[in-house]
């Protein structure tokens, strides 16, 4: 099999199926009573966690590619990003349906008044245009440069998402801190690359990374 066919018919379906795994586990546990005493809380936390994980995974593609030179990684970025949006939608739906029971008045009051909900809502809203413009046709229509500029909004969404998590925990920030550190590394690597590109660093620490970064 050619490598293009290998990616298209084996790797991509495998990543797709794997990305549905967390949802499968949630559904299985929900059906078998395995979500514990507060199933709705477990669903809320589960979908929220996986939104952040997929956001971070999609943000890890570019730095990983730079480090390893595996350009095929970029072929999976859109799928991971769309799965982040998928889990974010489920997370929002859980809130709108199972927490607020479609009481739009209450939701409208919650969003501006509860800072952690404001942040979560912002993180989601920012993802909407990105998901809508994720097709090859949209990239063509918008032009690569404009498309790329728009899709930098994912940084804002990820930051808002992590802040959302940090602000909602009662006292133990150890888990949001892990996400915050991962995000710092991922965004920091971009700043580093941009800084070096601008000529800020005269002697690159990683010669190999520097050559691939200019590609």
């Amino acid at each position, binding site marked *: 099999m050619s490598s293009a066919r290998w990616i298209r018919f084996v790797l991509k379906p495998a990543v797709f199926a794997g990305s549905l795994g967390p949802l499968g586990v949630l559904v299985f546990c929900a059906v078998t009573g395995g979500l514990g*005493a507060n199933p709705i809380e477990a669903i809320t936390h589960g979908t929220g966690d996986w939104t952040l994980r997929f956001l971070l995974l999609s943000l890890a593609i570019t730095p990983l590619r730079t480090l390893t030179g595996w350009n095929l990684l970029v072929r999976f970025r859109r799928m991971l990003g769309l799965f982040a949006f998928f889990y974010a939608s489920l997370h929002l739906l859980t809130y709108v349906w199972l927490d607020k029971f479609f009481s739009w008045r209450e939701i409208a009051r919650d969003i501006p008044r509860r800072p952690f909900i404001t942040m979560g809502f912002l993180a989601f809203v920012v993802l909407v245009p990105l998901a809508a413009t994720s097709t090859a046709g949209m990239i063509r229509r918008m032009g690569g440069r404009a498309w790329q500029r728009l899709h930098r909004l994912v940084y804002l969404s990820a930051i808002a998402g992590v802040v959302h998590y940090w602000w909602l925990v009662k006292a133990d920030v150890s888990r949001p801190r892990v996400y915050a550190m991962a995000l710092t590394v991922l965004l920091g690597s971009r700043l580093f690359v941009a800084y070096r590109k601008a000529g800020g660093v005269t002697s690159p620490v990683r010669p190999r990374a520097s050559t691939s970064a200019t590609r």
Partner: protein
Amino acid sequence: MLIRPATEIPSSEITDERVYVRRREFLQACGLAAVGLAASPIAVNAQAAARPRKLENVAKGPFGTTEALTPYENVATYNNFYEFGTDKSSPAMTAGSLKSRPWTVKVDGECNRPADYDIDDFIKPHSLEERVYRMRCVEGWSMVIPWAGIPLCNVLERFEPTSRAKFVEFTTLRDTRQMPGQRSSVLDWPYVEGLRLDEAMHPLTILAVGLYGSVLPNQNGAPLRLVVPWKYGFKGIKSIVRIRFVDHQPVGAWERQNSREYGFYSNVNPQVDHPRWSQASERRLGEFFKRKTLMFNGYGDQVAGMYAGMDLRKNF
């Protein structure tokens, strides 16, 4: 002070706990069968067998509710007990390291009979009562729990508090070997809670030593915990080693951690939101729809008088 006991709960209203255990069994069997796996009654039996021994001579107490009880396995597996980790499921898994016997409760402060009591001597003079109470967590969920315990007022009277005693301060065990969660500095250990003396002497307030007719599981605060049903759950301090009569208002562990969010009174109040979330409604575990949170968790008839004239928004 006028205290009206709520109507007795008819025993016909309480679902037999064995039915709850079987319900779980039934659900598990369904779920497992659905995915083509063999049902595992062994696992369920193991869980049932893990229940601590039965308590004897638990008399029905006043202030019952006719609401459905939260199943035992939920009460015993969904716990906020940061001494054993901050996940709700951690305490049930890790609280085995707590040794609830031998156990000493120190009574001191503004009273005539301070002493160190062995836990069994501490409890022995009192008869155990079953109290079916709602429990409303500050996080927005609630349970209905059949506690077995003793009215705190009966206990406190034994120690003869002096006229200088205005508050009662309770302290949890501090021992990082028995309570591994204390290695993390998520709260300023040991856990401390306090009540005004009249709140402590209120007939609704109990020291629980059991639930569902059995000895209190470690994860629920063995061997001795406070239950104050009109306050948010975190006021119900667990695994108590010290009771101190004081003349000043104690600072609880959560209040110390964040006094803007957790006040001394922490009475259940649907009108006063937590700074980060609404307290107007709650999720009763086991129910799909949320229910409205009641003022003083539905115990207003009994306790509202204690707060007459107080600004509950300020004294949250």
